[in-house]
């Protein structure tokens, strides 16, 4: 099992990572090796086995719909790299006509 350079670039795009040429080469090699190891699971017959999503038997956890104290806008914005005092700032998302 190996992974192609194109696949690595595609995955990086999905993961919102931009890789240097060096990283592309390194990850193509290393991910190929890891995926090759993971093929081990194909030795097992799992046709009639249920996928385990969680080890606990979890049921819905509900609470009353009450207002509880939460963080203040002022405090939250302190951690933002760019803000205007009210909102987080990001590059323009919508294009103007």
């Amino acid at each position, binding site marked *: 099992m190996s992974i192609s350079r194109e696949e690595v670039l595609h995955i990086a795009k999905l993961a919102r990572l931009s890789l240097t040429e060096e990283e592309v080469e390194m990850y193509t090699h290393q991910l190929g090796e890891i995926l090759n190891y993971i093929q081990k699971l194909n030795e097992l017959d799992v046709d009639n086995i249920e996928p385990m999503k969680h*080890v606990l038997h979890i049921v819905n956890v509900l609470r009353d719909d009450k207002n509880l104290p939460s963080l203040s806008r002022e405090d939250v914005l302190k951690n933002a790299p760019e803000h205007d005092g009210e909102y987080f700032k990001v590059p323009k998302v919508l294009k103007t006509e």
Partner: protein
Amino acid sequence: MKDSIQDRISELLDNLEKTDNPIFITIDKDWLWKHVKEQATIEGPLSGKIIAVKDNINVRGLPTTCASRILETYYSLYDATVIEKIRVAGGILLGKTNMDEFAMGSSTEYSAWGEVRNPIDETRVPGGSSGGSASAVSAGFVDYALGSDTGGSIRQPAAFTGTVGLKPTYGRVSRYGLTAYASSFDQIGPITKTVSQSAELLNVIAGKDSRDSTSADVPVPNYLKTLQEKVQGYVVGIPWHLLEKGVDEDVLESFKDVISRLEKEGVRFKKIELKYADYAIATYYILATAEASSNLARFDGVRYGVNAKEQLQDLFSYYAKNRSKGFGPEVKRRIMLGTYVLSSGYYEAYYTRGQKVRNLIAQEFFTLLNEVDALMFPTTPTTAFKLGENVDDPLKMYLNDVFTVSVNIAGLPAISVPGKPGNHGLPVGCQIIGNAYEEGTILQLGHTIERSRI
């Protein structure tokens, strides 16, 4: 008469200044002295105890970096539930410890704050990812430490540094305020010098929390009390077939020594088989990285974190730039792997298959633990390896986790307790695995091993 807590803290700070081993990421003296003053007024089970916190657990007023550049400027606005409980119990939080970035690693070498050196032998790794917490306890800087364990990150560094590390049952301790790596595996737990100290800390941090819907609503016993009960008549299963190859001679010898000590206390041993154990690492690295790729999507440099400070025209490049600059190599590797196994065309072959094998591995543990009281095998196949030995070979690094990951796959509690040291006096950990919510049993067995050392 013991020194006052202020004197102890002053002395610790002096000692910490003398070391260049980056065990801590943050010790904020102004914050600390204010905190010491506040805590001095509280009478509780942890009064006067000095505690280190892994830097992926939020403490209000201190940075939480997760040893990552992307969170370099992040300050916690709230306390994790475990921290809230420690404050109420009177404990003193000394600072935040170094770790593998976002808890991804087995050596504490993947940190943006530099690699931690094992206090027992500074040419070796302390293990990871809670290597800072384990080293802080091992070197005597703190009484107790908190770590987090997703695939062995409490137990393996405990084994490598000669300390006790306890991973509680999944859901036993609230994860509220712990930065998520792989949410269906992560669990917070204690690292201490002795087993009874771990019991003492677990007493404080365990229990249902309305802010973590996966925390278990199961009564918490007084672990210090259960510790006193006898282990005579316990039956412990040992998967000898796993120990036939790949385990160093000194580790095996230390393990056998633990067995003979427990036998003297009336514990009986039974040969068992874990036939899916060989598939645990592959399963873990599919599922944990898949969960990580999703959990770490929130780090985009918008609401918090660093941004690349470049004028970029579109949002995609903005995200990609911030993330690529902020994350280190192992985190990128795991995000890539996790994204791949979840991607269209590969999801069934990897992720779903991984979940199915998870079921097989977990059921096998559950069945065995109906027949015996606990399972036991070494925490790691070797003693602490040399700094740099595995850092460029990720697969080799992953294979070190062979004895720890299956426990997280099954969500069970496990403790690593120091056995007889191995070659060059390096610590060896013996791991005891219990049934879900039966931390009391493994603490008792661990306590018995510890007492028989004398």
